[in-house]
């Protein structure tokens, strides 16, 4: 087809150029460059091609394997909790009762707060000596825990922070889905004698399945990118119990300046995120033809 007007092409180039320059320079080029780095021993000075050595080393790096495992546990528990709790919160807060708007706003509040601030708040809560949680536990005669300093509890503590911060976001997305369910479905069910619980699990739940899937994928992608709370709250300690993939990238990239090796880790992360997002695109498309969400 040669139906393009020259003038149109020229205006398109002119109007796209400002964005494309930044996009190519700071997203596409670095992404490709990162793949290149992953095959070198780049350390800010030299970058010699070393083939797949970085990748074979990854497979034997017990710390990276630990980080990978931690990230998977973090993602799995976060996603499971957020998709179910977010759904329940949205379903129960979708009906108008007094103060419901304020409740919704309260739940979104931590989401609007920066992860740095959220991390500080929870450092205060978890502090073994002066933190509120242990003070409250001791007040009722319990011992208290070492929380972030306890190898078996630290990762769970971080996961809880993640759920606390993001539950409002999940609720919002579910709410949009729930609000688009036709009211007649509920009326018909009520006439048939369905109780509230039946309506929740037989109508609302199946109708929001596409939304649930979206929430699942976004929270999972988000969890695989976990870094800030680790860097701020635990630095990956105790004994690497809370280190994650991105925390390892940061460690090798910016503390040890073994950037080639860090780049190989970044490629692993990129692959995971790409696969998850592509699954999302696919299913989003096939869902749209059946149920119009939007």
């Amino acid at each position, binding site marked *: 087809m040669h139906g393009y007007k020259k003038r149109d092409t020229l*205006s398109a180039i002119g109007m796209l150029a400002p964005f494309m320059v*930044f996009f190519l320079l700071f997203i596409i080029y*670095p*992404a490709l460059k990162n793949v290149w780095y992953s095959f070198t021993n780049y350390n800010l000075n030299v970058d010699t091609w070393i083939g797949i050595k970085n990748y074979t080393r990854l497979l034997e790096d017990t710390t990276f394997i630990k980080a990978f495992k931690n990230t998977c546990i973090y993602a799995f528990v976060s996603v499971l909790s957020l998709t179910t709790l977010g759904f329940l919160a949205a379903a129960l807060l979708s009906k108008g009762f007094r103060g419901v708007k304020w409740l919704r706003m309260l739940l979104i509040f931590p989401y609007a707060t920066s992860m*740095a601030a959220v991390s500080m*708040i929870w450092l205060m809560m978890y502090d073994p000596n002066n933190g509120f949680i242990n003070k409250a536990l001791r007040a009722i005669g319990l011992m208290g825990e070492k929380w972030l300093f306890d190898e078996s509890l630290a990762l769970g503590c971080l996961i809880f922070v993640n759920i606390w911060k993001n*539950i409002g976001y999940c609720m919002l997305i579910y709410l949009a889905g729930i609000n688009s369910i036709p009211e007649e479905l509920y009326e018909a069910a009520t006439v048939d004698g369905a109780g509230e619980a039946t309506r929740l699990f037989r109508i609302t739940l199946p109708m929001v399945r596409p939304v649930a899937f979206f929430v699942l994928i976004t929270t999972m992608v988000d969890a695989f990118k976990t870094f800030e709370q680790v860097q701020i709250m635990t630095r990956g300690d105790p004994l690497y119990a809370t280190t994650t993939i991105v925390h390892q990238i*940061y460690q090798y990239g910016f503390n040890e300046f073994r950037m080639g090796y860090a780049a190989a880790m970044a490629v692993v992360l990129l692959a995971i995120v790409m696969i998850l997002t592509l699954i999302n695109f696919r299913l989003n498309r096939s869902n749209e033809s059946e149920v119009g969400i939007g």
Partner: protein
Amino acid sequence: MKKSKSDIVFRILSRLFILVLALSVAFPLVMTISVSLQTMNEIYSADPVIIPNKLQFENYANAMASGNWPRYFINSAIVTFFTVVISLIINSMAGFVFARIPFKFRDVLFVMILLGMMIPTQVTLIPVFTLLRNINIFGGGDSGLINTYTGLVLPFIAGSFGVFLCRQFYVSFPKELDDAAMIDGCGRFSTYVRIYLPLSGPVLASLGVLKFTGTWNEYTWPLVATSGDEMKTVQVALTGFRDEGEIYWNLLMAATLIAGLPIYVVFFFAQKHFVSGLLAGSVKA
């Protein structure tokens, strides 16, 4: 009746769920405010203090005096301002092109932009760092654009989500608008400036609020791209409290609240745009 009985149980359970949820979300926030108003003696005491004996408002002043906070705020404000303004201009223009102007390779380019949305910034962190380190123009020194405002802003304005958002918005405009503008002698660019831009309020508000929150709250890039106290943003400065020998929790919580203040103001007054931006990004039309 059996049914109404199960309804009552359901109602009690659901109210209980909401209560527990609301309390667990609210409580840490309440404690943040509480601790920010306590004395260190109250913090060190074994009793869990919720309501401080005497509200220590001077904690806020002391927190701000414990570092170069006016400077951190100016840094964050400059970075956020330029990121938001430049993003809005270049994203809406590009969104218009993808929605309205037919040209060769348009679809290929658009797919590339969608792919670009998937690439996590954590993956491009190292190459972007080394790239900026090697740029010596636009006020770059020995370490290039690292530790400059330009270096902080540039990676933020490259994100392609805004282009996608604006395109989806403009696609829903009637095509007759363009035809009418053409008849009046408008070119593509003046059609955009005179007709589309004045109607872009809602999408630019949503995108603006999202960009504002995202940039102000960003931690990782400023952590990597700044060195020394001068260029620290608010978020990076905040986490510096943790590295001091003795943590003054009251000052830290005061600083935490002040650091979030611009976000809370925007969130409170523009909640609608915040929410609609999030939803526009999630539900693909």
